[in-house]
């Protein structure tokens, strides 16, 4: 299953020129608000028709302006989860979930309804009305509704953006499970580095109507130049390691190429490979090995580059073992510590600042037919 997208469109002032491909698994469309992410998924879904271009999923052409082909939205079989859920207010949860079933061509997979309800925890909600659901429940129903239409492609347009941090944490595990269960392409629009780091196998960075970069989340977010495109707050390395031990005090230790990391609260089991995101702003640098410090993670590292990130800020790229780290520090510190390429130093990260990232190699089980 491969989705290929390539289109151009003229809006009064801003032009859109988008081209990317997405295979099975989660491809994140990442970028600032107004960069053209939602317009791109709308073009894939058939809710927006660009001036020219070609969009195809395997052998099915959704759009080919050179041949005059425009497949209407209802014949594309694209599951679309909107930011605002868009549940039908006059139907119960059951009615919403069942809406797409009658339009599925060919035999309906009877066991699917139960599996999707289990996957998303929808069974207790079935007889309720959309207005009686919380924001998080609505999004889960919207995801279930899209899946039960048996799509060949799933589009998620900032499904967590309207939720508070707590609700986000409640839904993310469902999305992570979804990612492991589905074997078709999933486009995930987001401007949250955390969400992208935790879910995506592939990232397409969209900036000002153009594809600025594509690559793995690790490569994208540890890239020095990304800070300039997307803002320094997005910078941060993704590091993959093997779980060593789950300690009785709630910490989990992880072997990475540059040493051992401790992180707080994780349900990973020993031996499992996990990815953690180390945001550039959470990294301290020290020339000497610090002692008497509350931070548990101290990795020896060598400086690769020091870049002016504007104003009083410097972005430092480090090599720690085989991994690369980024650190945001002040220009003053960089000067006082005499940091320059080749300098040996220590990168310090608080355990509480470490977020669990996505599974680097999602297992693609074919449990839902495409």
């Amino acid at each position, binding site marked *: 299953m491969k989705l290929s997208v390539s289109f151009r469109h003229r809006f009064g002032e801003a032009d859109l020129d988008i081209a990317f491909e997405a295979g099975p698994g989660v491809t994140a469309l990442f970028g600032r608000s107004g960069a053209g992410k939602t317009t791109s998924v709308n073009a894939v879904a058939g809710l927006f028709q660009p001036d020219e271009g070609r969009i195809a999923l395997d052998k099915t052409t959704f759009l080919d302006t050179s041949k005059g082909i425009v497949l209407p939205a209802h014949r594309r079989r694209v599951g*679309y989860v909107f930011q605002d859920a868009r549940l039908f207010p006059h139907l119960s949860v059951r009615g919403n979930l069942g809406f797409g079933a009658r339009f599925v061509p060919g035999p309906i997979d009877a066991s699917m309804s139960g599996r999707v309800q289990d996957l998303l925890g929808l069974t207790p909600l079935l007889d309720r009305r959309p207005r009686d659901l919380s924001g998080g429940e609505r999004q889960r129903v919207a995801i279930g509704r899209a899946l039960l239409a048996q799509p060949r492609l799933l589009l998620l347009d900032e499904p967590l953006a309207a939720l508070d941090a707590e609700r986000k944490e409640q839904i993310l595990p469902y999305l992570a499970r979804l990612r492991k269960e589905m074997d078709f392409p999933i486009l995930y629009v987001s401007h949250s580095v955390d969400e992208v780091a935790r879910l995506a196998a592939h990232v397409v960075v969209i900036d000002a109507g153009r594809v600025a970069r594509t690559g793995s989340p690790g490569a994208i977010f540890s890239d020095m130049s990304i800070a300039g495109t997307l803002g320094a707050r997005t910078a941060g390395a993704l590091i993959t390691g093997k779980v060593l031990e789950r300690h009785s005090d709630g910490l989990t230790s992880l072997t990475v190429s540059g040493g051992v990391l401790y992180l707080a609260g994780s349900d990973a089991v020993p031996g499992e490979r996990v990815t953690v995101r180390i945001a550039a702003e959470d990294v301290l640098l020290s020339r000497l090995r610090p002692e008497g410090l509350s931070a548990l993670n101290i990795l020896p590292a060598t400086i690769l580059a020091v870049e002016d990130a504007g104003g009083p800020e410097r972005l430092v790229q480090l090599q720690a073992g085989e991994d690369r780290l980024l650190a945001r520090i002040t220009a003053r510190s960089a000067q006082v510590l005499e940091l320059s390429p080749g300098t040996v130093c220590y990168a310090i990260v608080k355990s509480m600042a470490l977020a669990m990232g996505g599974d680097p190699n999602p297992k693609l089980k074919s449990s839902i037919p495409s």
Partner: protein
Amino acid sequence: MELFSGAEWQAIGLSLRVSFWATLASMPVAVLVAYALARWRFPGRFLLNILVHLPLVLPPVVTGYLLLVTFGTRAPIGAFLEQAFGITFAFRWTGAAMAAAIMAFPLLVRAIRLSIEAVDRRLEAAAGTLGAPPFWVFATITMPLILPGVVAGAVLGFAKAMGEFGATITFVSNIPGETQTIPTAIYALLQVPGAEAPAARLIAVSIALSVGALIVSEVLATRATRRVEGR
């Protein structure tokens, strides 16, 4: 003692029959026209909008006269309908229903159009991505969401049809048992000295029906709004 005399019952019954058929017959056309005006951009849309609203502002006697010269037995269309299908409008209750339908039409269209415009089109787009072809989207999403608005419009249109006077009396005259509805009956009674009591009874019926219709219409309109907003 009887509440209403035979002639009064006849007028009330005929009014109800005329209004019922007037509302029922104009409803599908009103939904189509309201949908077209709310959603489609086409040449002549402006003219259609004017045409729909014309009965609201035109003197009813003019509307009645235009109907007479179009559907009268000697008018081309009226004569054709009579010869080809045996349908006569002039001086029949069917003509009264037609006059009432045309006078109620703008009210129906306005109410339905407002509820169509209040529908969140993003819901229809969502239904499309779930595989629903456009007609299904209309039948399963748009129609249920606007239904209270449609019913409210129908109630209002029905009340308007019950009260129609000018176009009716011009087009189909005031024939007891055939075209004499409540308003034309009241008019006839008021021409006769000493008939104030039966006139007053019909006036009371008229007021009760109108107020009742307004209340029902208002309640349904509120419910329509709530439903569209998903509350």
